[in-house]
């Protein structure tokens, strides 16, 4: 940290003299005035020419340094250097309809973001690099909800992930990743969002990239094309996630009607909308070939209707179950419209536990963690929500703190 004295304010930058006697250009920020003293960090530096290379020796030195560090990273994998530049070890794709793909490093921090369609560009202009993947996905879901990409009718979110790079503990890594993403997104279940988790791998990623489609959509394509070989990847690219999910469900229904003896294991999505994770034994359907490690029990988690699942969990005829679940879904959708309108209030409610927790520090850690995330959630909201909500929540918080 440094202290700086503002000598001059220009259009795009300010000039300061620092407490260690340097004259620097810093980024301009709101409300800055000549003659003020400010605290600043390295990130506030105003950089125009990043690398003014004056002589060839310096350039060569930098080159050598880069080579050494790359060698170090690959050979010894010193990931302590990830502060400066992380190395991607996994890819996570998020399809709502805005499609995103993130490369993340060893500690689930985003090192690269790909916005794969126009919606994605509209939704989030923010640079996510360096943030925790869970936070990033959560905040995108929040914004998608606000901007009505996610609604009670179109409530599917496809999260797909693959481990990249040639290291040996793939299986363990992908399990960890899956677990942390599922846990991280738990608290969105209030919103009745249907999360579909699709495990993928480097091979599929390569294919997806070649076709310029997100990993999640590519996985959906693989599922659809098994039943309907006429479908091509371009159709998939242009259609929304909810359509694809509906299509898969339709396909499966059609097949179930045509041939009642067919096993539901053929369709992992439908599977998961009927069974809870623990209700179905692990069976790997034949789809996907050698690359795809399908784990149907993990394929989708219906956060929507756990109680119903419990009721329906016992073995019944597949067809009936489909119908029943769909009925329930409809009822809940109606409820959800009501909920959606009162979202502001809901968020305020979510805040209260945080203050409770403050008074009572002995509370469960897990819970406080969730609160922390909720809190973050709220903050995100503060920036966008209308004044009414701000006023409410402000009152809540000050009352609590009294």
């Amino acid at each position, binding site marked *: 940290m440094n202290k700086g004295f503002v000598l001059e304010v220009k259009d795009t930058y300010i000039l300061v003299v*620092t407490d260690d*006697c340097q004259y620097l250009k810093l980024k301009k920020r*709101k409300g800055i005035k000549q*003659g*003020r003293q*400010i605290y600043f960090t390295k*990130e506030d530096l105003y950089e125009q020419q990043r690398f003014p290379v004056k002589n060839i020796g310096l350039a060569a030195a930098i080159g050598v340094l880069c080579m050494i560090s790359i060698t170090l990273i690959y050979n010894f994998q010193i990931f302590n250097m990830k502060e400066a530049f992380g190395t991607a070890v996994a890819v996570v794709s998020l399809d709502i309809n805005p499609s995103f793909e993130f490369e993340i490093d060893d500690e689930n921090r985003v090192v690269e973001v790909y916005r794969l369609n126009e919606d994605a560009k509209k939704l989030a202009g923010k640079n996510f690099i360096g943030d925790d993947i869970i936070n990033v996905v959560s905040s995108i879901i929040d914004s998608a909800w606000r901007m009505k990409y996610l609604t009670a009718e179109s409530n599917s979110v496809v999260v797909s992930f693959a481990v990249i790079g040639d290291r040996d503990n793939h299986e363990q890594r992908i399990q960890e990743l899956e677990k942390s993403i599922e846990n991280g997104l738990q608290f969105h279940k209030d919103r009745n969002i249907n999360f579909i988790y699709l495990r993928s791998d480097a091979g599929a990623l390569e294919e997806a990239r070649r076709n310029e489609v997100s990993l999640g959509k590519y996985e959906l394509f693989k599922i659809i094309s098994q039943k309907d070989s006429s479908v091509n990847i371009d159709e998939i690219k242009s259609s929304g996630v909810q359509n694809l999910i509906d299509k898969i469900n339709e396909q499966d229904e059609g097949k179930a009607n045509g041939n009642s003896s067919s096993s539901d294991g053929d369709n992992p999505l439908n599977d998961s909308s009927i069974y809870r994770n623990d209700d179905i034994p692990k069976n790997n359907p034949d789809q996907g070939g050698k690359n795809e490690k399908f784990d149907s029990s993990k394929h989708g988690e219906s956060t929507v209707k756990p109680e119903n699942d419990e009721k329906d969990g016992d073995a019944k005829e597949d067809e009936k179950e489909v119908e029943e679940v769909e009925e329930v879904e409809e009822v809940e959708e109606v409820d959800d419209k009501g909920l959606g309108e009162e979202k502001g209030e809901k968020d305020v409610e979510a805040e209260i536990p945080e203050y409770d927790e403050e008074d009572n520090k002995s509370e469960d850690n897990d819970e*406080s963690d969730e609160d922390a995330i909720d809190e973050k959630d709220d903050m995100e909201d503060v920036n966008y929500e209308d004044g009414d909500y701000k006023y409410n929540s402000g009152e809540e918080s000050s009352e609590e703190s009294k």
Partner: protein
Amino acid sequence: MRGFLNLGKHDSLEARLEKIKAGDEEEREKFIKEYVPLVIKTIVKITNRYIEVENDDEFSIGIGALNEAIDRYSGDKGNFINYAALVIRSRIIDYERKIKKHSNVISINQMEDEDGSKLQLKTDGDDIAYSLEIREQIQKFKNRLSEFNISLEDLTRGNPKHKDTRLNAINIARDVLKHRRIMEAFYQKKTLPVSFVSRELCVSTKVLKRSKKYITATILALDSEFELIKDYIKGWEREVKSNE
């Protein structure tokens, strides 16, 4: 090797936090000092404003939040930095909400109460006088610099990057200030007489030429009534010395 390095670093953070929680106040202070940039970064991200040294409520709340994060952190909360940033963010946002409410209350009172608003005006007036004075000082400094054909932009480019080079340049500036004949030539020619200084003070011309603008600016600052910038220079010299 990687495992070893990672482990070493990880352990030390955990161990340090443990130590602090056990009541090691010295360690806490050191730790907080190290994490001050995180606090500033997090606050600036929310407010999109610089934190002012004179009005640092947000800063102290940020530090308080960091303390809170240290006390409440446990291994199962994930990365400490993420967790701390989260706590800081929420405290700052709480504060901003409160401020907004509060400032509304004041403005209404002002409208009703004439005496109160007069009082308010008076303190504002003091602020304005103070900032006018500072502005005047800056303007004088800039005028002086431009007499010597130097702009503030030039200074940002000609910064001696290394701490020792800078300190050395300041020392040279101080020596020049003590030297009556050099100072005369300095003001007469409106430039630093490099070969003269080199001869009289036994400094290499290379050093002088490289930091010429910086040395010139420092001489001008030290030889003015620009107290704030003088304080900055003095303060830094003192700090460097005390660290040695």
